[in-house]
């Protein structure tokens, strides 16, 4: 048991972060060094002609998709927006940012209300969006016929992460904020690798392991679209 905890609670996070960082950097560098003759697509100057501005617009608002498939746009945009908010929300789990928030004028009650209110809502919304993405993938022939095992796996993995996260929030076995922050502080400073109190919570270990697995897969799976989008739009807007 202890060795399993060590494997998932200590080894995996380090490996995942290293693989993710090196993998993404390697991707970006290889993409960058390849020749890219212009292959402009018009109208090219919707954002004042700047490919970079256009890429920002596409990455933030998914504007091409907005024109192409409105239903998918709604689901996908909400999914990614909430995902970003959830990642930001997790900052408070990794480390104590309450002092920072308070210095910005938030009361302790307000922080708590934001965490349970907005955080709770985010967990539910993203679960709904994930289910909708899955349903869409299964229900629409043009999507289903190009879907492979890896596409389902990615959605299921994300779904499992969301569900275990929601269990911790809404279920009886609520995780301990103080212990969790201690654990991440230890990981970040490379000490205390045994007898970690936070890892006594099985749901937490599962949630966290799946999340690090997802992060680790990012540079080598379809999730790489997170990196690709910053390059692909540049190609057609030169």
């Amino acid at each position, binding site marked *: 048991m202890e060795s399993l905890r060590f494997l998932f609670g200590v080894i995996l996070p380090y490996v995942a972060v290293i693989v993710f960082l090196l993998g993404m950097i390697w991707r970006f560098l290889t993409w960058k060094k390849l020749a890219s003759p212009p292959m402009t697509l*018009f109208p090219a100057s919707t954002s004042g002609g700047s490919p970079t501005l256009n890429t920002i617009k596409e990455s933030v608002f998914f504007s091409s998709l907005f024109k192409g498939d409105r239903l998918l746009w709604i689901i996908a945009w909400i999914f990614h927006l909430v995902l970003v908010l959830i990642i930001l929300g997790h900052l408070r789990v990794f480390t104590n940012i309450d002092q920072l928030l308070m210095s910005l004028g938030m009361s302790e009650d307000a922080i708590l209300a934001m965490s349970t209110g907005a955080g709770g809502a985010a967990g539910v919304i993203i679960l709904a969006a994930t289910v909708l993405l899955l349903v869409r993938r299964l229900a629409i022939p043009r999507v289903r016929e*190009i879907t492979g*095992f890896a596409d389902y796996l990615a959605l299921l993995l994300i779904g499992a992460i969301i569900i275990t996260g929601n269990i911790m929030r809404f279920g009886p076995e609520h995780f301990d904020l103080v212990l969790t922050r201690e654990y991440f502080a230890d990981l970040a400073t490379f000490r205390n690798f045994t007898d970690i109190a936070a890892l006594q919570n099985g749901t937490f270990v599962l949630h966290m392991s799946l999340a690090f697995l997802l992060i680790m897969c990012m540079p080598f799976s379809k999730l790489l679209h997170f990196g690709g989008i910053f390059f692909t739009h540049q190609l057609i807007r030169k």
Partner: protein
Amino acid sequence: MSDTNVKEKVVNAIKAIKNGPRAGRLYMETCAKCGTCASVCPIYHGKSEKRYNPAERTDLIRRIYRKYCTITGRLFGKWAGAEDFNPEDIEEWRSIFYECTGCRRCATYCPFGIDHSVMTRKGRAILDMLGKTPDTMQKVVDISLETGNTDGANDVAFKAAIEFLEEEMEEEHGIPIKIPVDVEGADYFYVPPSGDVLVNPEATMGLAKVFHILGMADKWTMSSKCFDGANYGLFTGNDGDMKKDNELYVQEAKDLKCKTMLMGECGHAYRIMKMMMEKTGWWGELPFKVENCMEWTADRIKEGHFEFDKSKNPQPVTYHDPCNFGRSCGITEDPRVILQAACADFREMYPNRGENWCCGGGGGLSAMDDIIEFRMEVSGVKKLEQVRDTGAKYIATACSNCKRQLTQLMEHHDEEIDVGGVHDMLSRSILINGKAADRKEYV
């Protein structure tokens, strides 16, 4: 060629994608399989089958790429969407890679801007390398490389055609209107598609009238060697052929010492000259610039040089944006300026400009009569619906391939709708000495 040999060649070509250009590699690694491309694709709209799904077509190559070039593909095989190449699939590839018109509409709506035409061209390049380009296409390339034009016409036939056009114009207007040929030192070197001289010559007559009215009849020329901008190397994926075909025209432009290469109403020819040859500097610094004849005429119209008798073009007219002019070159307003000046009832079809639906004959498909059933009943279906919605009786378009596809499409579906060029309409209604053409039917 043995199967092992074929396999080795194909696999090597696909492995080479990882060395660039950047687009190919990114397209191997970025698709999220969301299906948006299929929902905006004219082929998939015509028939919703898996083989017509753009993401699936690209996946034909992507699966092999994953097998040989990705860690997950090597470790998990088909669970990671990787598959080995099977030489028996080549015959299927010959059909599938010629079931995409390369219209780039997918790229306009894809959340990542993935341009599946790039992978279609890659697939065609692989076929070409194996000598498996469909015969109808290879024939056009061969003729063009041999004679300098896709119709296989020689300079005698060309000069006879030009003489005929001059006679026609004289009959129309009662005065001689010149089409200069092989004039060294003329400012403008006009390069139409050969169809606009030999098949639908009104566009060339229209441009001749423009130069005549401006008093610039001695400032332009055509070439009896180079009168066809069409370049099918773009369609077969063979860069060598494409550049060889192009080089002849660049050399002729230099020999004629022109200042401007004035491209005719031919979308892919203009795209190759402007967006590829000129923009990426295939032949270094050029002593001339590339312009399109529609830009040129539209600018003169805006300057107020011409008068028109719109009653000569009373029928409802719509404009079909050729993909290579609209999406790939951004030439969308100039043809409209010309048509609105020359026609009494101009109507838009929707969507249009950069979002226009392909005619169904793009990517060279228009020249392939062996797949006419596919062009009429699958790839052209959306265009037919769009045209019908306008109520137009004349479709103007600036591309010989679009014209051929649209003409066949209207005939096939029993629509009495004429198809022609943009300058054609100008030629019919522009006033010379206060009088429009006394026109005969040319069709």
